[in-house]
């Protein structure tokens, strides 16, 4: 191959690419569904009777490598009962600007109270807004305005031989 034919070959390759369908996903219109084990925005779960699963043990905060969970526990009283255990999380905050979405909090929690959900649209105009409070995290929280609704099967990506990559 001479330099000339080499270059011509290169030109033909780029020219053929011109007529391919672009792979761009138009983000705000098309929200790419995520895999089931995707780690996104956290959720605090409830028992079926409505009580919070979290008992304020702070194990998640201890496990968090980014040190972004703040738990302040308080005693449940018969009049004000939030969780089945002795204590509940009076304050539960996650600083989303520091979270690295490692999922250690989920692993550490003895009650499966916290899990990482599928929402990934977490941009905010101010840092303060990124400190998520318990109210925001608790299910069924305020209608999650940013949860992308998967319009198609999450496995829309052509499956590879050895399972999803």
């Amino acid at each position, binding site marked *: 191959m001479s330099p000339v034919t080499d*270059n011509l070959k*290169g*030109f033909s390759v780029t020219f053929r*690419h*011109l007529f391919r369908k*672009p*792979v*761009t996903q*138009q983000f705000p219109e098309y929200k790419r569904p995520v895999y089931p084990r995707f780690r996104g925005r956290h959720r605090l779960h409830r028992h079926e009777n409505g009580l919070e699963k979290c008992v304020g043990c702070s194990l998640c905060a201890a496990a968090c490598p980014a040190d972004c969970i703040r738990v302040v526990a308080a005693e449940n009283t018969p009049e004000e009962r939030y969780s089945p255990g002795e204590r509940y999380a009076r304050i539960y905050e996650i600083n989303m600007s520091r979270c690295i979405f490692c999922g250690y909090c989920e692993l550490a929690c003895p009650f499966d109270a916290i899990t990482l959900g599928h929402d990934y649209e977490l941009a905010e105009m101010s840092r303060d807004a990124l400190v998520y409070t318990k109210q925001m995290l608790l299910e069924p929280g305020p209608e999650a305005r940013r949860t992308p609704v998967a319009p198609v099967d999450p496995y829309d990506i052509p499956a590879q031989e050895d399972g999803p990559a």
Partner: protein
Amino acid sequence: MPDGFIVTAIKSFVLVNLVMVMFAFMTWFERRLIGRFQVRLGPNRVGPFGLLQPIADLGKLIQKESLIPVGSSAFLYLVAPVISLFSALMVFSVVPFGGQATIPGTDYQIYLWIADPNVALLLVFALGSFSFYGFLVGGWSSSSKYSLYGSMRAVSQLVSYEVSLALAVIGVVMMSQTLSLTGIVDAQQRDGVWYIVPQFAGFVIYLLASTAEVSRIPFDLPEAEGELVAGYHTEYGGMRWAMFQNAEYIALIAFSALASILFLGGYDGPVLPGPLWMLIKMFIFLFLSIWVRSTLPRVRYDRLMTIGWKVLLPLATVNLLVTSAIVAYRA
């Protein structure tokens, strides 16, 4: 000024704005097309098909702070982009977009060029070299080593490629026996053949050398991001940076116009009106330039010099000798 002063002034005004629109369109076109070459979409958000993207960019650039680096020669720093832009725009004063035309609805005849001096080609080359003063002065005056390197590269590149470029063009001049651009178009009609056919070697040399002249990839060494940040306009921002970019793109458009005139018969073509042919031909060269940009990597600096001096210059010389022999034999 065959049309008189006032009409020429109006024509110049229209032309400058037209060229600016072409520049804006070109930035959009390039980004879209490179996107498609890379199997992505390119800008498509602002306006239909992203067509208003250049205007959004302009809005952004205007808002930028304009600062003068410490230690720079303020006057030269400020004047450099103006030199480049001015000389790039000036080239269009001699580019003919057509012959004579009648203004619709009247009997008024105008020429579709601003001026048609009999040394138009010389003027174009003089202005092309002049715009490098802008790069040189801008790089030197911003007191930054990257800018200085960039401008030095720009100048040595100009010196290397200007010679081959001129030699390639002289082949056309020999065949057409004139330096006037309208004259060259007429000569191609007279000879009944676009000069790309008899001057194919010259055409290839012209393409390569003019790519180097407007410092486009693969010859964009003066602003090689990988090594020089942004070359001579490293220290420029906002509208001054935009003027440099503007100058570069307008030079590219000008060289495309020139290529259309020299090798593709300019505004000569069947059925469609002259200016449209001119635009179509320019468009071909602009497309080619984007295609090259999305295909070839930047060449190494010593190779750039090798290509310029050891390949293009001998080729251009041989082309010139053969052409002159043929022209002399025919005469």
